[in-house]
């Protein structure tokens, strides 16, 4: 039995973080699950959100867009552009949470076949952004991604000691 834990790693001083997850399926199927709407609508997102619309134009320069509908009926969109596609092992794409277009990131998805399982790795790099309100600088952007792996440990420590 392989560990199904989602690992999230953030290296200090970098604006990126990585995730790792193992699934029990051949790589080609996992690649389809990540790129075809007939599959994506069946699994992507928490259970309290439904994917209200899905488009994936899987070619370099093509765009994707996922719209999730919450229990309150509000829609929220995630979208981006495919920058690099090496089926079935690698996709590089931009990622934008549409309400905050200035917080764009670059995501790399890598699939590694390992026996009967596939290792899914993602790397998310936040761009340095000039934020209009002047309160956010690139250092804070770095902090958003850098801080949270350590924060988990810190919080666990704190909660224990309270």
């Amino acid at each position, binding site marked *: 039995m392989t560990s*199904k834990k*989602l690992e*999230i790693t953030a290296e*200090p001083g970098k604006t990126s*973080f990585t*995730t790792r*997850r193992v*699934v*029990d*399926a051949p790589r080609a*199927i*996992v690649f389809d*699950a990540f790129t075809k709407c007939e*599959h994506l609508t*069946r*699994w*992507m*997102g*928490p*259970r309290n959100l439904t994917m209200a619309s899905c488009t994936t134009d899987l070619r370099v320069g093509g765009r994707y867009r996922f719209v999730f509908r919450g229990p309150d009926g509000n829609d929220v969109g*995630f979208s981006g552009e495919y920058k690099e596609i090496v089926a079935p092992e690698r996709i590089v794409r931009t990622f934008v*949470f549409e*309400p*905050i277009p200035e*917080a764009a*990131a670059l995501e790399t998805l890598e699939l590694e076949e390992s026996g009967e399982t596939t290792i899914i790795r993602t790397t*998310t790099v*936040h761009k340095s952004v000039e*934020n209009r*309100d002047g*309160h*956010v*600088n690139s*250092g*804070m952007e*770095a*902090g*958003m*991604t*850098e*801080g*949270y792996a*350590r*924060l*988990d440990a*810190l*919080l666990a*420590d*704190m909660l224990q*000691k*309270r």
Partner: protein
Amino acid sequence: MGAVIANDRDLNTTFGALADPTRRAILARLSRGEASVLELAEPFDMSQPAISKHLKVLERAGLIVRGRDAQRRPCRLEPRRLKQAADWIGTYRQFWEESYSRLDDYLHELQTKEKTRDVKKTRNHRRTR
């Protein structure tokens, strides 16, 4: 999905404050109880003004509060804001943990279908059930 809740200016300030290792160490120290600037400066091998600067950032971010005692002005952790920051991380984690758990089920379903098809083929169209 990292940016989901991070639009909040407060949260950006919080993460900005947390980006610095010294400030994280100060928070870790304060999680064991309140301390004065002097007490905080000691283990960090830093001047008092340098520590004061870090404390100002933490205070502005709402991560600590400082006592009114003019002499000592002890620093105390304010866990509420840190909790908010952790909730944001929780949101990211929850989004993907739940997605992957659904993906497990879905991949299983897909492969079961495929196997059933293969079995049907090899049995030369004999009914499998």
